[in-house]
């Protein structure tokens, strides 16, 4: 019995002693932290994707608390709701930002962009693009080796096995921008999702002259400026033989789509056209990718 008592007493003493030491150390090295940081962090999605530009949700939370205003701070994963919540916690107002989504600006499928050589290196876009222009005649287009797929933490982008091009899953994409950074060819862009997910964009980044671009790929933008002339809102710019539709100015009238001779302007999630477009040949231009 006494053995038992001794053991219990000894262990108890050690335990109490350790607890005391831990308590004192804890007091001594206590870090004063704004309790709101934890509150803000709790209302974030905890994806730790880095889409906000900070290393993780915790550092984003502390940046939110420290910042004077909510300008320039945006969690692309949580979106407007989360930012409203965070702003309310901090007694501020979040600026309204439009929901964005990643779009792949290359439509050079196997059919439209013939392969001229075989790439046999490591399966990594950055390595391939450092080596050469790519396995097609277009040195700007998608290499299809999936750096964007590897970079996505939300399983929202996949390579289509038929076209060998990446496709964005609209429901899953949080516009964190990881794929935009990962793509060595700067093909992926974050664009406004648009009302009912409707959007129009030039699905090409080829800066070669029209003839060269067309030779390499059937659906390349040749910089002919027909879309620019068709646009009533001056939303289209042409630079380096390449058209670009400015998000903020585009009113989604779709006038540019049928005039494109190479069908390089894509419209997404629109209802099928009712009236006959000016050039009947281009009727199938409603490409859903």
């Amino acid at each position, binding site marked *: 019995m006494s053995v038992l008592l001794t053991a219990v007493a000894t262990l108890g003493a050690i335990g109490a002693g350790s607890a005391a030491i831990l308590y004192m150390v804890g007091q001594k090295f206590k870090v004063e932290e704004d309790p709101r940081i934890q509150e803000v962090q709790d209302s974030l999605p905890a994806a730790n994707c880095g889409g906000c530009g900070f290393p993780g949700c915790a550092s984003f939370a502390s940046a939110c608390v420290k910042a004077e205003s909510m300008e320039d701070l945006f969690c692309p994963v949580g979106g407007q709701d989360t930012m409203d919540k965070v702003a309310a916690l901090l007694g501020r107002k979040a600026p309204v930002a439009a929901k964005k989504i990643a779009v792949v600006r290359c439509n050079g499928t196997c059919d439209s962009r013939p*392969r*001229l*050589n*075989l*790439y*046999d*290196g*490591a399966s990594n876009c950055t*390595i391939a693009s450092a*080596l*050469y222009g790519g*396995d097609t005649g277009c040195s700007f287009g998608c290499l299809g080796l999936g750096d964007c797929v590897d970079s996505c933490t939300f399983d929202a982008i996949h390579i289509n096995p038929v076209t060998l091009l990446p496709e964005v899953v609209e429901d899953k994409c949080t516009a964190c921008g990881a794929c935009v950074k990962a793509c060595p060819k700067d093909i992926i862009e974050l664009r406004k999702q648009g009302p009912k997910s409707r959007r129009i964009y030039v699905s090409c980044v080829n800066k070669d002259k029209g003839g060269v671009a067309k030779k390499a790929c059937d659906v390349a933008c040749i910089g002919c400026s027909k879309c620019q002339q068709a646009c009533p809102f001056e939303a289209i710019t042409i630079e380096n033989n390449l058209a670009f539709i400015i998000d903020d100015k585009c009113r989604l009238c779709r006038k540019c789509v049928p005039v494109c001779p190479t069908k390089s302007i894509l419209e997404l999630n629109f209802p099928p056209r009712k009236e006959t477009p000016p050039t009947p040949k281009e009727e199938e231009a409603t490409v859903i990718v």
Partner: protein
Amino acid sequence: MEQKLIVSPSPHVHSGDTIEKNMYNVLIALIPAFLVSLYVFRLDALIITACAVLFCVGFEYLIVRYILKKTPTVTDGSAIITGVLLAFNVPSDLPLWILALGSLFAIGVVKLSFGGLGNNIFNPAIAGRIFMLISFPAQMTTWPVIADAAGTTDAVSSATVLGNLKLAPESLPSLQAMFLGTEAGSLGEMSALALLLGLLYLLWKKTITWHIPISIMATVALFTGILYIFDPITLYHPLIHLFSGGLMLGAIFMATDYVTSPMTRKGMLIYGVGIGFVTVAIRLWGAYPEGVSFAILLMNALTPLINNYTSPKRFGEVVKHG
């Protein structure tokens, strides 16, 4: 152009070296030891070795194919090596069901559950052997007596040299017998000579470098040698330690396993010296007569750490103005 050119980053040639070639070189190096065990144990050696290989390859194939659902990789030869080494580490009269259990543990748990060849932390054969040793100590530590060099084995069990060191140091065999392989023991650890032949082959083929085996042997010889000088009883004679038990087998074939040994020269030396020390410590002061397996297992666990803290000698690190 008619044909599509292949484009890839440099280099555009390859040495032609493959994992398979290295594995089969190890198997070739094991042949002399196998021949000795055949000579000593006759059919038993063949049965045990063949069964161990069959079990290991079979389990690997079945697990990869039906549980992991991948293309089986048995052709790389690593499972065959595991099988042979496992067989070399057991007494010739071990019941086959124990061998099967040991193989399953080695392949299924130690190798494949970590991700297969290249990703395992412990040497499968060593871990399998220790699994059997701890689970079935009686069967694993009794060896059939060898009547005479040419005679057949009978059912009487006998202790090994190292067992005798612990229990009855006066009944030691001659060094010559130990070197050539006519003393009781597990299948593969019979003849130090045969194992050394294997080492020469591996060094000649550049399959392994000298660092690990030589550093293990040198450490064991030095450590026991120093003890011998201070306390010259037969128990400490360095040659007895070198030629007995699984030391040679472990040092040449098991400690040098690519996957579980360090990658830098410096690291290999640290690893070898570590194995040497632990082996001698277990042999002299531990409860088990034999310590090589435990020593290797322990140093396997330390390998990632050694890799992390040793780096190869860099070009330009020491600037010599000559």
